[in-house]
């Protein structure tokens, strides 16, 4: 018996493809909402990889690798 969850509270992986458009429309795209999303994403990453008892080199390296990829994308036209 599936529990009745509101569309706007469903996680992205549970949204069916047909509902994707309405799910996106219900998300909070105000500046406050975007800041909240960035904060939540940052907390997820931080608490999973860095704020642990035996954090390794991987947590920092993934951030640096992402930065390199981002810089490559920005400078692609100059190469």
């Amino acid at each position, binding site marked *: 018996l599936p529990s009745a969850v509101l569309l706007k509270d469903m996680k992205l992986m549970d949204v069916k493809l047909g509902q994707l458009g309405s799910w996106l429309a219900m998300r909070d795209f105000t500046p406050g909402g975007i800041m909240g999303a960035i904060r939540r994403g940052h907390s997820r990453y*931080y608490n999973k990889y*860095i704020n*642990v008892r035996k954090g390794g080199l991987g947590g*920092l390296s993934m*951030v640096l690798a992402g*930065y390199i990829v981002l*810089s*490559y994308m*920005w400078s692609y036209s100059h190469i």
Partner: protein
Amino acid sequence: MNLSFFDQFSSPSLLGIPLVLISTMFPALLIPSMDKRWVTNRLSTLQLWFINLVTKQLMSPLNNKGHKWALILTSLMIFLLLINLLGLLPYTFTPTTQLSMNLALAFPLWLATLLTGLRNQPSTSLGHLLPEGTPTLLIPALILIETTSLLIRPLALGVRLTANLTAGHLLIQLISTATVTLFSTMPAVSLLALLVLFLLTILEIAVAMIQAYVFVLLLSLYLQENV
């Protein structure tokens, strides 16, 4: 072809949007905010240890009034260190290769030390213009020389940082271009160039750290005279 070597120093922009602000603010992401725990994660512990080391090293020659500058000098040191080291990664942009940014950092801070000295202890600050024990005949010339050296300090601070980093990046690019071009014709020479490139990269890492340190150290020295 020659002009393409300087492309790495152009401000990054995406469809006309300047991205240099993101490149400058990125080091802030690498420093986690302080937890209220006693035993924090490894990254925070390492960074705390390093910041304590830097602060003690910089602030011990200063008297109590100079300790008010601890926050700005330490954060400037961490900022420059991270920006310089991040610039060594491939495809990244180093904001400190831009003279405008380095002068914008050096000039207000130097002026602040000068004005602090002139406002609080004007005769002592001006007295630094004449070292003790100079022969009487040399006094006018020495005053002029010391004033010039005082006024050129912000320029020297900014240009030193810019020139060191820009030269390092250019050298890395030139030697790596030579290595790649020579690989098809003379692999032995290419191997030699690769060795030089390896050593140069180690030097660049050292220079990145040293230049940040020198910048802040000189500022603290100017502060020491004036506070």
